[in-house]
């Protein structure tokens, strides 16, 4: 009898443990955030956050899921993140968000105040892509509808994954960005995002780079310049290299197959010099002129000219960043720190200035590996 009573008692106690999860929530109690845009708020010192929310209701009807845009202003990002619940009635679910777009204004004022929450909080994941909007606000970018995907932020993420075929914008996840902010001798950067308008249909286009000095944006470089900047950073994986013909008109397209860049700091005549050597394997993909590509010899001439042009372009973008922005996005400082710790101790205090006076030498080599399906240019008779 006693045994039965005890058993019954234990069973009752066991009931406590089957009451379910502590903080159990159904999928329809949360709103899934796809992307975030951060602008300055209307009043001074305020921020305005725009979230793109996946519309799960529409998704049920087997049509592609739609999205909804919500904007709220507040003093801190987290305050807004929670405040949005007062509009949606549902708690936001952040870990599926793919893109965070900062307006240029916010970026120029300093980004630490807007990205710390994203990196610190456990509801978010720090592997979202970060962008700077070249348009007036981040809101208008995040509210666009996209060509390929129904949700802009997911389309942006897709663009970043395919970016290695274009190489006109750096691919930066938020942790990488913070990494660069913290590392001594390296400056952060983020891709720029535009609105590309065509037949009154607006699309987001990613091209170019925003350059940061400390946590403040100081300037931009174009998509074309970004490509050569990536060459100097050894981050190029693909893309197109155009080469001029003898007259100086663009006539050849080379597809970048692979690239290896070696950067070496050396002392020459008591002056620090960065030696950049690039070796690029390319395939010839387009010849826009009937002349100049007929035999093996013309291949060598083309290789040489391509190397020389690449060299000049890389050098010119380095000089531009040195002159205009004093921001070492190439990570030269980090290299000096690693290879010459003693020298670094002397220059690190004033690295921005030292960087802009740094002597840089570029040496590029282009190797044409293939010429596609045809072996010569189209001949006219």
């Amino acid at each position, binding site marked *: 009898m006693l045994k039965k009573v005890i058993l019954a008692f234990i069973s009752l106690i066991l009931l406590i443990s089957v009451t379910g999860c502590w903080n159990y929530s159904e999928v329809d109690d949360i709103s899934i955030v796809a992307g975030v845009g951060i602008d300055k708020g209307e009043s001074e010192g305020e921020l305005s956050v725009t979230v793109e929310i996946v519309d799960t209701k529409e998704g049920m009807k087997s049509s592609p899921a739609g999205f909804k845009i919500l904007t709220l202003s507040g003093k801190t990002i987290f305050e807004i993140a929670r405040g949005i619940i007062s509009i949606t009635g549902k708690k936001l679910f952040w870990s599926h968000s793919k893109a965070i777009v900062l307006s240029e204004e916010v970026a120029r004022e300093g980004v630490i105040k807007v990205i710390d929450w994203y990196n610190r909080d*456990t*509801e978010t994941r720090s592997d979202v892509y970060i962008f700077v909007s070249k348009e007036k606000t981040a809101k208008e970018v995040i509210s666009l509808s996209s060509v390929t995907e129904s949700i802009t932020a997911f389309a942006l993420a897709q663009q970043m994954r395919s970016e290695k075929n274009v190489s006109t914008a750096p691919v930066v996840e938020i942790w990488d960005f913070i*990494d660069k902010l913290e*590392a001594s001798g390296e400056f952060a950067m983020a891709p720029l995002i535009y609105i590309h308008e065509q037949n009154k249909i607006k699309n987001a286009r990613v091209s170019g780079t925003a350059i940061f000095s400390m946590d403040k944006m100081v300037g931009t470089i174009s998509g074309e310049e970004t490509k050569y900047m990536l060459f100097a950073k050894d981050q190029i994986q693909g893309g197109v290299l155009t080469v001029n013909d003898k007259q100086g008109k663009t006539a050849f397209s080379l597809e970048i197959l692979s690239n290896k860049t070696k950067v070496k700091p050396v002392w020459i005549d008591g002056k620090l010099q960065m030696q950049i050597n690039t070796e690029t394997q390319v395939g010839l993909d387009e010849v826009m002129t009937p002349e100049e590509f007929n035999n093996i010899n013309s291949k060598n001439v083309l290789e040489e000219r391509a190397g020389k042009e690449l060299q000049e372009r890389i050098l010119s973008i380095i000089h531009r960043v040195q002159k205009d922005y004093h921001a070492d996005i190439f990570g030269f400082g980090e290299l000096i720190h690693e290879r010459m710790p003693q020298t670094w101790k002397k220059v690190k205090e004033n690295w921005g200035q030292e960087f802009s006076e740094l002597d840089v030498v570029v040496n590029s080599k282009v190797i044409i590996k293939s010429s596609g399906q045809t072996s010569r240019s189209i001949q006219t008779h």
Partner: protein
Amino acid sequence: MNKEIIPVGHMISVTVLFTVGTSIFMGLPGQSGNSKWIALLFAMVLVVPLILIYARLHVLFPGKDLFDMLIAVYGRVLGRMISCLYIWYAFHLGALALRVFGEFSRSVALTETPMLVPMLCLGLLCIWVVKAGIEVLGRSAKLLLLFTIAVNLIIFTLSISKLEYHHLLPLFDKGLQSVLSDTMGTFSVTFAEIIIILGAFSTISNKAAGKKILFGSVLISGMIILSATLRNLLMLGPEVVSSLNFPSYVSASRINVGDFLSRIEASTAVVFVITTFIKASLCLYVASCGVAKVFKLKSYRSVVLQMGLLMIYFADFVYKDIMEMQYFSYHIYKIYAFPFQVIIPLVLWICAEIMVSRSKHKQVASQQ
């Protein structure tokens, strides 16, 4: 008191998991930035003389544990007083391990669950296994060690593509002094805690096995911690690692193999649960044994539940928050633990040597 005996392999597994403990997730003290791993190697070298002392103590007092040794050498009163210090040390250490687990689940995994709940779950498991006896702990440790090594290897392999070897340069970036300071820190939070194992040495039958167990486990646990430290360092870079509370968790979250194998960090937390479980259980076992020895109880089992519940409750209020926890374990712990880990064992060893040689002398004299 019935005698429990466990094989050498089991004891090594327990010691390895105990030594790896919380450092596999918390990371090591990190003033030296990218030279942390050198500090770890230094700490492994530094612990060798200490191990020799511990092993020698085992040879001098075969089949006895730390508390027996203390009582035998210092006499009934003083020996018991020092035993009480060690009971406190084991009890506190177990509570700290539980607390690290609690902080981990509160700040990362189960953010809305009160911290006591996961600690209670793990703590009750510890109580159960200790009540079941050290043989059970040994057997489970052997299985769990294989699992731990396997998970570590898998994570390391998956993260190879994300390792950036240039983070290792320049060596000794922050100066030799910070490396030495980290060496002391690493020494005290990992290897030197092996003193607790001495409290379970009565379970080894073989007199010569002490050295083998201690060296083997320092080597294996050193490799495990080294692989985790290097992985975190090369993946995240020294600056980021220094800002994170749980670097291993974050580095696992960066793993992304072909957009398919990603977000696996929660699975890696299993390893953390394993090491914390073994560490807290062993601490609980040693503390209970100590209480049993000091108060001449028939069996340590009668106090396990009480000690365990107290340990869980203590873990709940031992720190106010995670910042305090980090400050204590990186800055204060090395000073606090030094007497327990080095000074008292050293004095114990010297006294024991004198005592043994005297008694040999007496034996020789009485024989003549």
